């Protein structure tokens, strides 16, 4: 019983690290895309303040979006795999 708790603990720690890394990566990609979108065709007479507002608005939309929710699959898929493997291995 202790062994399965230990597995869950270490899996949780490892997956959390990956969750944070992947989250930072996706945020970074989104921010870069927003910056490029603005820089490709900046509206006339608008400066750095409007650019920052545009990016902040885009990032807020990302934080509420579907992709952010899909990040939970980082936990769901490996934990589901453990259950499936254990079932296929041990029960016919």
């Amino acid at each position, binding site marked *: 019983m*202790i*062994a*399965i708790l*230990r*597995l869950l603990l270490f899996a949780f720690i490892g997956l959390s690290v990956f969750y944070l*890394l*992947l989250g*930072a*990566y996706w945020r*970074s*990609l989104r*921010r*870069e895309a927003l910056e490029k979108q603005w820089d490709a065709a900046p509206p006339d007479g608008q400066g750095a303040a409007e650019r920052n507002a545009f990016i902040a608005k885009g990032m807020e939309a990302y934080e509420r979006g579907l992709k952010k929710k899909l990040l939970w699959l980082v936990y769901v898929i490996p934990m589901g795999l*453990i259950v499936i*493997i*254990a079932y296929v*291995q*041990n*029960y016919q």
Partner: protein
Amino acid sequence: MSGYLVWGLILLLLIGGTLFLRYRYPEGSSGRRRMKWGFWALVILIVGLFLNYTLPSHDVVRITNTYNRLTTVSWENAWAYASPDTGTGEGTQTRDIRFIEAVHDDDSVVVFRNEDTGWVWPPYFKYDSSNLHAEASNLRSDKAAPQWVMVTYYGWRLPILSIYPNAVKVRAVDSADATVLPWVNILILTALALLILMLRRMWLQFRERTIDPVVEDAGDFLEGIDAQADAARAQARGWWGRFIAWINTWRQKPRP
């Protein structure tokens, strides 16, 4: 001698050897170039052997005997056995282990062990050794009326270390030529390759967005100080230098 001590000494030797070679062959020498080739060849070899040991393999055999016997496990082969707390293990040295003896179609023999992997490495999460043993016993047959069995296992048979592959599944098949598509291996290797590509792209993105701008700033700041600028730019080359430059931005900046 205790296993931890031996593996610790081997690790120390490896680290010491690496440091020695690093200073013996400085950056840019032909020895360093060859060493880099050797290093990557070694990494690929070790990863390949690790995957070869851990991923499931299949073998069509006729089971001739199933039994258990007291087996002594010591530091040199303990890595190929279950960790002591996963089931059959009683002490750390001697434990009762189930074995499955089998022959191939060409009369060459193979011996599997049948041990729980428990909830640790490798991640087969097998805890039904007793059931597997009963199934294997049920499938025993003799040469006159052979019952061929597809055994799924992982691990190696190395007599010199007294290690045995661990059987994880047995399944009756019609003939000795039965084959199976290793789709589990295909899935795992594909996922691994995707994960490595993903980590590489994550690192490149981190470098482009977080480290490189910092290095450019540091370069601008140092322009004025000729003597240090060259040294700093030389250091800023290579990913380690960039990483250090990024770390340095956490330090308090000197007032201009």
